């Protein structure tokens, strides 16, 4: 290679690096703006100044209660759940090299939801038990999926089909539990069917926050390995990667985040599915899409929740809005994949 080619490569890489930073900062700025919007907007609209003072701990009549007790938990739940769903969804999609293999499509979210519904609605356990059970259920679902799809030769198509079957069974189980547990409690039912930030409380948040704080950096650290895995099993091993160990670490990280986010907000439809492909489009090939996917997830959840709260006469739960926004994209993606002949 001549020095000039190297210079071009270096320049190109620097340009893409700059583009990546721009994407990250604009996503982060948008997320901040949405966070403030979540705190300021409501049946009464408070100015940013009052909100900041209430957050700082000052007691302002009306503002403090609305911001600290109602809007802050809602905002934080959306923020952390969106981040967790985005990163975890992107991890599965990258690892299985198929954008359709997002955790809610293949039943992992449904496994965690089913466990959480059982603990919260049927047995009434403490938050700690809910968190642990939903993580265990998520991991068990992954193991079941893995063992069922490993028979014969492995193919992602088979895994997705089996996942759709598992998802159908678990959803039926959730409907049954809602039926016996919360027969006339429609908000609760919607939380577990499509995800909602309604009624988020500060006391529910710590497990999710801890999981995101622990596992999001882990997944980001492994993101270099993740991009090697994307090249395929053999290429990854020959580049010196312990593929199995990386995969297990990534799965555990992603499932813990999914499980705790699901236990807090319910399975917010399509966020885990949409965040990865959108982030990949924004940053292009060659750079980690983990952090952008998390930020896209945050923006999706917060923006959809604001739309759900204020755009219509009725307040819609966030999951319904993400469902309506996400479904056309899913269909578009399918059309594109079929055209390209990915299956």
């Amino acid at each position: 290679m001549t020095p000039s080619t190297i210079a071009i490569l270096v320049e190109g890489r620097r340009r893409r690096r700059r583009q990546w930073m721009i994407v990250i900062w604009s996503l982060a700025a948008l997320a901040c703006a949405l966070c403030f919007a979540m705190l300021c907007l409501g049946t009464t609209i408070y100015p940013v100044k009052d909100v900041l003072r209430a957050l700082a701990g000052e007691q302002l009549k009306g503002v403090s209660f609305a911001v600290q007790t109602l809007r802050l938990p809602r905002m934080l739940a959306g923020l952390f759940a969106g981040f967790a769903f985005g990163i975890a969804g992107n991890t599965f999609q990258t690892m299985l090299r198929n954008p359709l293999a997002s955790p809610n499509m293949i039943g992992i979210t449904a496994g965690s939801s089913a466990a959480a519904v059982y603990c919260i609605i049927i047995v009434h356990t403490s938050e700690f038990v809910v968190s642990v059970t939903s993580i265990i259920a998520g991991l068990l679902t992954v193991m079941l999926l893995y063992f069922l799809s490993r028979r014969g030769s492995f193919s992602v198509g088979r895994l997705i089909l089996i996942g759709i079957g598992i998802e159908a069974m678990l959803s039926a189980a959730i409907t049954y539990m809602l039926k016996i547990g919360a027969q006339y409690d429609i908000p609760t039912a919607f939380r577990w069917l499509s995800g909602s930030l309604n009624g988020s409380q500060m006391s529910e948040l710590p497990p999710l926050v801890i999981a995101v704080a622990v596992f999001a950096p882990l997944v980001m650290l492994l993101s270099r390995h993740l991009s090697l895995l994307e090249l395929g099993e053999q290429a990854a091993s020959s580049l010196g990667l312990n593929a199995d160990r990386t995969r297990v670490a990534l799965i555990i990280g992603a499932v813990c985040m999914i499980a705790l986010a699901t236990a807090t907000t319910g399975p917010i439809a399509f966020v885990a599915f949409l965040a990865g492909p959108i982030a990949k489009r924004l940053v292009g090939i060659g750079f980690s899409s983990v952090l952008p996917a998390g930020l896209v997830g945050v923006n999706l959840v917060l923006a959809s929740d604001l739309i759900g709260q204020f755009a219509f006469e009725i307040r819609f739960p966030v999951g319904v809005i993400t469902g309506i926004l996400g479904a056309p994209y899913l269909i578009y993606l399918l059309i594109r994949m079929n055209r390209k002949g990915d299956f």
Partner: protein
Amino acid sequence: MIVPIPTTDPPQAAHAPRHLALVLVAGIVLLGVCIVASLALGSKMLSWQQLMNAIVHPGTDDYATAIIHKRIARTVFSLCCGGALGVSGALMQAVTRNPIADPSILGVNTGAALFVVCGIAFLHIGSPGPYISLALVGAAVTAVFVFGIGSLGRGGPTPIKLILAGAATSAALSSLVSAIMIPRTDVIDQFRYWQVGSVGSGSWDTLVLFAPFLVLGVAAGFLTAPALNALALGDEAASGLGVRTGTLRAIAALAGVVLCGATTAVAGPIAFVGLLATHLMRLFLGPDLRYVIPLAALAGAIVLTLSDVCGRLIGSPGELEVGVVTAFIGAPILIILAMRSKVRSL
């Protein structure tokens, strides 16, 4: 027009499948068990004596008799819906030449449900008559849409492409159903039934509305069965045997859509019955559709009615919608099919 000559049937198809008699007897016995169970079991358990009494003396004016009359309508209704879904599943599998086709998996039931919900919400339609036409339009539109997306690209409509197109469309449409439902909490009970199928509302009136579609669809299914057998050999071979493949596909697909659309209109979206019934019958009878289609109707009726009885027992003192039960027992079939199929055929 070329008239199909009976002697062109492949010779082995002239023989009835080996287990036909056994399957028939077992099916009829099971059907009897189902009917009795469906009449006697529920949140109010009835004794054999009460059952006989109510049937022998239908005029008696007591509690048990009233319950049984209600349950007779419900049982007949669920048998009809199950039969329709069974035939619909078998037809769709034959037309798409695809073992995983089922009205629910292809999203057709959700499409029908969405149209009905829109009709209730925006056009203020309150009677079950127009529901059926709305549901039929919804089912047809969704079927065309899903099949269109699923058959793009290389290899035509492969199972995985179809099922993903169906699952995606279904997810999209059920989000819309939710969005339309939520603001209308006052009528949410009426809507709830459009999200999860149930035969609880079955009455003689709805049955009368449903019957013409059932008869037409099932008749079309039975009549096209021999030609569909030829279609299984491939389009060219079928044309060689004198089958007009385009017309045949259109008729069979239309019959399948009419059956599941009409069922959804009266009972809501019920999943996996067609898949389960058809594969059970294929397992016992082999691929000959002249036997599989009629017996899939029998199997569908049995599966749906048993599921309904299970739902009533599990959900007691209320009831669990039959759609939930069939999803739970039918989804494993999908998993097994996915495990068994060859990678290339996915």
